[in-house]
């Protein structure tokens, strides 16, 4: 009996030893992600969780380093013509696809044409409209060959733009600008994204994809910087339940979580300390006001509503510090924008603000006998509900009566997009690239998809157009600041909160830097034993 036990114990010890040896040989990073990707086809993607995975699989012309700064990727350097319209990229010679093929300029030409071909059904193709003829190609009015991209030779890529675009490099860091391997797409069609078919040019290749379970990436040996990639396997785990990720993080089963349950923030901060990473993020949470509705057309009414909101209370008490109060529309710290506009009542005492708001309402013809009644629409969520309730309470103090309507997300956004009749509607925006244009363009009068407010101010539009044609970045920033001033005066959208990125990062995971865009390529990270 004892002999048997000893043998058993020895066997177990040996197995454990072997297992640990195997573990030492291969470093696996268990990475929590917001949700499963809707697709791994870079031309059809739209979500942040997809961007995280695609960034590991593919390398674009330029990439983002651990601090989210733009650094050379497949392109080693680039020149811009004097009119800012012609960009010439020189590609590195040692760039390889995971099947050994060289990464050529022609691959980028193929890829950009593919995303803009209407038949691809790309959800985010519009982001590439600065490229010459992109809009016409995407509408099917021009052949894809007419797109402003060319490959004079395999190592040189030329991109012609419609207009000068100061943020073009930032734009190229978006996952829609990642290349596909043309031969695989031709051979497999839409199935080129399957693990057995996918050919990538980034630090990792796709090994496994089980929906709702995990996506396994393994290190690519053909990647030009493979020597500096420390993690051998990345396992992406989708977490729709943020608490589930927290539990698995606490149990040591995952090394990072891409979100934190705000309702447990106090506990999490207390228990996990430095692992909790809260950083400013490129996003705004706002209330859109139907600006062309007679009831709300008076600017003074919108200003009064904005002024009466105690954003500090909402940020601290309702969002547990996971959001920051917003008195401007463009998030602070954004690229090409040293100093934005901001509401002048930002530092005013809340009680004085309330008084001034009452005066404004009175001037606009509302008082105790004729109270303003507004309706807030929001997509169903506990935090949105709490936010709306708190704001209604603040508005009550200035004599405004508020009613609520909440519906599920899909219905809510369909209603906004279809120009449904509303007073005030909750919405949010996460920037695609770090430039103020990406926020201010939302309420340009010709932006049919995003301008929920039906805001139309020729002065505002003119400033944005002028900024687009200005090459000097300081002058451009100043023009955009003027536009934001107008925005904060007219308030087509009432900015409420700036988003923060919330991550849990294990102390074993090294090289993680908090940054405004919340991008953290696995190739820059390492895992301490």
């Amino acid at each position, binding site marked *: 009996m004892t002999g048997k036990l000893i043998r058993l114990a020895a066997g177990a010890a040996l197995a454990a030893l072997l297992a640990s040896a195997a573990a030492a040989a291969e470093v696996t990073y268990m990475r929590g992600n917001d949700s499963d990707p*809707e697709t791994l086809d870079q031309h059809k993607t739209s979500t942040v969780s997809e961007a995280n995975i695609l960034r590991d699989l593919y390398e674009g012309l330029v990439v983002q380093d651990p601090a989210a700064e733009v650094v050379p990727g497949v392109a080693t350097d680039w020149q811009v013509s004097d009119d800012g319209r012609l960009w010439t990229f020189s590609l590195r010679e040692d760039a390889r696809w995971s099947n050994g093929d060289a990464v050529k300029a022609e691959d980028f030409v193929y890829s950009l044409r593919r995303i803009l071909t209407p038949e*691809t059904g790309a*959800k985010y193709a519009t982001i590439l409209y600065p490229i010459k003829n992109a809009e016409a190609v*995407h509408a099917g009015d021009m052949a894809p060959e007419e797109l402003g991209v060319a490959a004079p030779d395999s190592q040189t890529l030329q991109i012609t733009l419609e207009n000068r675009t100061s943020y073009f490099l930032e734009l190229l860091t978006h996952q829609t600008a990642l290349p596909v391997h043309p031969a695989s797409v031709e051979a497999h069609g839409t199935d080129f994204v399957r693990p057995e078919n996918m050919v990538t040019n980034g630090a990792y290749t796709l090994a496994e994809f089980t929906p*709702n379970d995990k996506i396994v990436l393994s290190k690519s040996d053909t990647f030009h910087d493979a020597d500096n990639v420390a993690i051998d396997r990345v396992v992406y785990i989708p977490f729709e339940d943020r608490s589930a990720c927290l539990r*698995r993080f606490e149990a040591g*089963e995952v090394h990072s979580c891409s979100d934190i349950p705000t309702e447990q923030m106090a506990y999490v901060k207390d228990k996990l300390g430095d692992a909790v990473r809260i950083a400013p993020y490129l996003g705004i949470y706002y209330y859109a006001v139907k600006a062309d509705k007679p009831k709300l057309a008076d600017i003074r009414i919108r200003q009064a509503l904005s002024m009466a909101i105690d954003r500090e209370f909402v940020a601290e008490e309702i969002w547990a510090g996971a959001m920051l109060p917003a008195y401007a529309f463009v998030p602070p710290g954004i690229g090409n924008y040293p100093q934005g506009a901001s509401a002048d009542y930002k530092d005013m005492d809340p009680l004085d603000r309330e008084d001034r708001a009452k005066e404004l309402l009175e001037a606009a013809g509302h008082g105790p006998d004729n109270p303003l009644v507004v309706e807030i629409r929001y997509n169903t969520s506990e935090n949105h509900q709490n936010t709306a309730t708190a704001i209604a309470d603040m508005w009550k103090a200035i004599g405004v009566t508020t009613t609520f309507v909440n519906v599920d997300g899909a*219905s809510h956004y369909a209603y906004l*997009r279809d120009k449904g009749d509303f007073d005030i509607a909750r919405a949010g925006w996460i920037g695609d690239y770090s430039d103020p244009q990406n926020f201010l363009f939302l309420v340009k009068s010709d932006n049919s998809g995003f301008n929920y407010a039906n805001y139309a101010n020729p002065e505002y539009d003119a400033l944005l157009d002028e900024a687009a044609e200005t090459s000097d970045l300081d002058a451009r920033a100043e023009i955009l600041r003027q536009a934001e001033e107008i925005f904060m005066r007219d308030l087509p959208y009432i900015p409420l909160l700036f988003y923060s990125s919330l991550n849990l990062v294990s102390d074993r995971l090294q090289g993680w830097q908090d940054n405004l865009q919340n991008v953290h390529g696995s190739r820059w990270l390492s895992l301490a034993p």
Partner: protein
Amino acid sequence: MLAYALKRLLSAVPTLFLIVTISFFLMRVAPGGPFHLERPLEAKVMENLNRLYHLDEPLWRQYFLYLSNLLRGDLGPSFVYRDFTVADLFAAGLPVSIQLGASALALALLIGTFLGCIAALRQNSAADYLVVGIATFGITVPPFVVAPVLSLIFGVSLGWLPAGGWGDGALANKILPVLTLALPQIAIVARLIRGAMIEALRSDHVRTARAYGLPTRIVVAVHALRAAILPVVSYLGPAAAALLTGSIVVETIFGIPGIGRYFVQAALNRDYTLVMGTVVVVSLFVVLFNLVVDLLYAWLDPRVRFNA
């Protein structure tokens, strides 16, 4: 028997057809579509997508297109998970859900029956009250409480079992989810067995068996249980459907790649084909299970067989 089963299966065809038709049109009544996201799409992109997925055609044509594809066994592509067809998603998720559901059902039957028998045999004793108490607890405490608590205790605090994840179906990863799923079913089965058993123990054939001097063990296990299990058998149909579809909470909290979550997710995402796919699959399961239950019933209860 075979003819009866076939007849039952055939009679399910019109039912399924009705379910598919009603669900198809009900789904379309809901506002929004699969491509209405938080960040709206440009009109042109929407147009292209609608054309790709035939959403630009009149509804009746979409309906016939769906029906004809369905008849060929094609459930269509998922609108939201664009790299997968609905069939792919089910091929990956259904085996997981079935494993989980079947394990939970087996566990519930085993433990529920055992507890129910004990309670019935010792009616109005401490053991009986304990079982009834546990059963009430099991039914009233919802899985979204049980699941995180189990995960916190056994996964985080004690570290005995994984706090979540499927682990490619490893036994350790299944224990907590199966337990969570089984708990309310154990409670229901125990209560059903207890009630039926008390009645069965008083019935003539059990009294006769006792009069023959058979040991209690045999009387209970063979004669009383056979009658007492009948209500549980009729409950199996709804239970199986509930386990298959009701696993969404368990799947989300433990990170299990089953199909339960598609029921809610697909509807919220307006993933039309996936919604229809889940409706078809679940209807099929309910029809099949009811058939199995009827056959089982006939096998267990000679009276039913005689009447048939």
